C-alpha cells in the first residue's frame, strides 16, 4: 500500500492530482445535491406528525453526521502526520477544520430551527444538541490554534496534538452529556422519536447525504490545494507555477 501511496505523498503530484480531481467532484456534487434537494423540498412526502417541517431533516442529519465524520478524519490525518511526519496529512487536517466547523454550525442552526416548531423552544439541552455544541468548541479551538502559530508546520503539529486529545475526549464527552441529559430530563420535553422512514423519504435522504459528503470533499480539496501552495512556497515547482499564472493573468 505504501508503494502505491508514495507518489501521492509528493506535494507537487498531489497538487496536480487534486486539480484534476476537482472538476469531476464538483460535477458529481452538483448532480447529487440538486437531485437530492429538489426531491427533498418538492417531492418527498410530509411527515404525518411533523408536517413539512420534517424537510429540515434532509439537511440537519447529513450535517450532523458529517460534522462528526470530519472530526474523525481530521484526527486520523493528525495521527498520520504526527507518527509518520507526513506533511501532506498535516495540510489535509488544516483543510478539514473550517469545513467541519461550518457543518457543525449548520447542524446546530437547523437543529434549533427544527426544535422551535417541534419542542416550542429554540434551544433545549438535548444530549445531541449539547454534544454538537461542544464539538463546535473543539473545532474552534483547533482553528484558533492553527491561526495562533506563524509557522504553518508548527501550527499543524500543535493542532494535531489537540485534535488527538479531542478525539479521545469526544466519546467521553458524548457519553457524559447523554448520561447528564437522562438524569436531568424534564417530563415536559418530549424527544423526537426516531422517524420510521419510508422509502420515498429514504431516497431523497440518501441523495442529500451523498451530495453533502461530496460537497465536503470539494471544499476540502479546494482548501487542501491552498494549504499545499502555502506550505511549499519556496519550492521551485510552486515558483514556476506562479510564474505561469501571473503571465497568464497579464
Amino acid at each position: 500500500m505504501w508503494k502505491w501511496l508514495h507518489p501521492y505523498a509528493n506535494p507537487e503530484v498531489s497538487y496536480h492530482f487534486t486539480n484534476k480531481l476537482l472538476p469531476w467532484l464538483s460535477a458529481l456534487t452538483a448532480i447529487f445535491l440538486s437531485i437530492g434537494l429538489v426531491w427533498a423540498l418538492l417531492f418527498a412526502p410530509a411527515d404525518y406528525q411533523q408536517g413539512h417541517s420534517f424537510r429540515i431533516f434532509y439537511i440537519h442529519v447529513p450535517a450532523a453526521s458529517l460534522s462528526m465524520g470530519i472530526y474523525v478524519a481530521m484526527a486520523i490525518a493528525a495521527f498520520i502526520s504526527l507518527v509518520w511526519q507526513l506533511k501532506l496529512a498535516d495540510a489535509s487536517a488544516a483543510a478539514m477544520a473550517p469545513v467541519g466547523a461550518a457543518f457543525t454550525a449548520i447542524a446546530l442552526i437547523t437543529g434549533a430551527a427544527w426544535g422551535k416548531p417541534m419542542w416550542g423552544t429554540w434551544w433545549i439541552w438535548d444530549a445531541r444538541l449539547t454534544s454538537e455544541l461542544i464539538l463546535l468548541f473543539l473545532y474552534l479551538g483547533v482553528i484558533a490554534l492553527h491561526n495562533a502559530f506563524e509557522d504553518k508546520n508548527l501550527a499543524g503539529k500543535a493542532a494535531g496534538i489537540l485534535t488527538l486529545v479531542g478525539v479521545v475526549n469526544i466519546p467521553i464527552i458524548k457519553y457524559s452529556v447523554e448520561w447528564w441529559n437522562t438524569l436531568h430530563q424534564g417530563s415536559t420535553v418530549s424527544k423526537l422519536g426516531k422517524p420510521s422512514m419510508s422509502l420515498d423519504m429514504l431516497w431523497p435522504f440518501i441523495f442529500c447525504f451523498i451530495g453533502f459528503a461530496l460537497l465536503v470533499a470539494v471544499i476540502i480539496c479546494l482548501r487542501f490545494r491552498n494549504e499545499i501552495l502555502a506550505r511549499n512556497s519556496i519550492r521551485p515547482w510552486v515558483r514556476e507555477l506562479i510564474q505561469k499564472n501571473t503571465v497568464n493573468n497579464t
Partner: protein
Amino acid sequence: MTLKAQSTQETENLTATIDNSMIGDTAQSSQQLSYRHAFMLVLKRDLTIAMRHKDDIINPLLFFVIVVTLFPLGIGPEAQTLSRIAPGIIWVAALLATLLSLDRLFKSDHLDGSLEQMLLSPHPIFILVLAKIFAHWLITGLPLILIAPLLAVLLHLNEQSYTALLLTLLLGTPVLSLLGAVGVALTVGIKKGGVLLSLLVLPLYIPVLIFATSAIDTAALGLPYSGQLAIIAALFFGSLTLAPFAVGAALKVSTN
C-alpha cells in the same frame, strides 16, 4: 550549500598527550537516571519556587473565594436556591481558578529558558512533566480542596454532600491539572495564549464537571454515588497515563 568541518591533524596529537579521563565515562560520573530521583528533583524545585513566590498560591485561592461569594450576591440569599446550585458553583469556580493558575505551569520556565534545559535532560520528558503537574496540583488543587468546605457552608450545601464534595475534588482537581497542562503546553509559545487556553481546555473539562456535580447532587439525596466517583477515578487514571505524553509532545512543538 554544503559545508564540511574537517578534523585537523593536530587535535589527535593533542588528545594523546592530555589525560582524557573526564570524557567518555559519563556513566560513572553521573548519577543513575532513576525516575524517582528525577521526579523528586523537579517537584522539590517547583515547590521551592512556589514557596518563595507565595502570591502564586494565594491569588487563585482568593479568586476561588471571591467568585463563589459573587453568586449569592447575584442570585439572592435564599438558602434553598443556594443549596440547590452550590455543587455547580463550587465546581465551576474551582475550574476557573485552576484555569487561572495554569498559565504559570510552563510560562516562566519557557521565558527563562529552563524549559529547554528540561527537554534536553536525559530523563524522560513525561516524568519531568508529571512532577511539574503534581507540584501544580499541590500548589493550587490542594488548597482549593481545603477551603471548599468553608465555601460550602456559605452556600448552604446539603450536609450529606460534604464527603462527596471533598472526594470529587480530590479525584477531579488532578484531572483538571493534567488536562490543563496539555492546553498550556500547546499555548506556551504563543504571545497571547491566555484566552486561547480557555477555549482549548474548558470543553475538555465538561465530563469532570458533569460527574462531579452529579455525585454531589446524588449524595444530597442520600443515594450512593460510587458510580460517578468511579468514572471520575477512571478519568483520573486515563489522563494520568495519557496527558504527560501529550504534554511532552506539545512542549517540543512549543519550544521549536
